[in-house]
């Protein structure tokens, strides 16, 4: 499952999508909207992305991870539009025969997504001020 969606993420469905008798380890990571960052309050996050390229990049990230680790199944879902406090903006699920590979692969996938997927978020503050979160230049 590779998706870039406006709908809330159904984390049970993402986890179920990597289920297989071949795996003994299933890791689900959810990235959620945090209220405070270095003392600064966030009311909500608004995500925008270059949809066709997001889908290509997420597939490339998944394929690369599947070459590096013995992954049985892998799903990556990211939202666009408004994501309220505590709601998930991103979900990564990986299943592998043993747990060390699932943990490592899921972390690598998330880190690589944050470095490469053409997605941007705007932070809304309590006073109505809004700004694009300073991101990572893609190299």
């Amino acid at each position, binding site marked *: 499952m590779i998706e870039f969606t406006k709908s809330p993420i159904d984390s049970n469905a993402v986890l179920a999508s990597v289920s297989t008798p071949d795996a003994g380890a299933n890791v689900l990571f959810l990235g959620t909207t945090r209220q405070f960052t270095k003392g600064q309050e966030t009311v909500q996050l608004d995500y925008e992305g270059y949809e066709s390229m997001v889908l290509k990049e997420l597939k490339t990230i998944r394929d690369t991870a599947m070459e590096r680790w013995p992954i049985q199944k892998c799903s990556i879902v*990211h939202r666009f539009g408004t994501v309220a406090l505590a709601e998930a903006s991103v979900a990564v699920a990986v299943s592998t025969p043993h747990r060390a590979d699932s943990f490592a692969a899921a972390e690598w996938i998330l880190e690589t997504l944050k470095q490469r997927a053409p997605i*941007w978020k705007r932070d809304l503050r309590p006073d109505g001020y809004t700004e694009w979160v300073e991101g990572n230049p*893609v190299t």
Partner: protein
Amino acid sequence: MNIELLLFASAKDLFGESQIPLKLPTGATIADLKSALIKRQPEAASLIGRCAFSVDQQYATDDMELNPNHEIAMIPPVSGG
């Protein structure tokens, strides 16, 4: 040749549009595109320096030659996740 450049997030805000037309010499590269952009919008120079560029939804290097059929986009520093 005429190309359309897709803009997102802070780049879209800075140029005030999600897509801008640019006239470039035949055989122009991403590096030439950057120079043309800075000439058009000097105050965007700092942002352009931190942006990546994509051609047909793949990150492209500065020496990549462009043609009018390419889908070209300017990718500001990314903040997904």
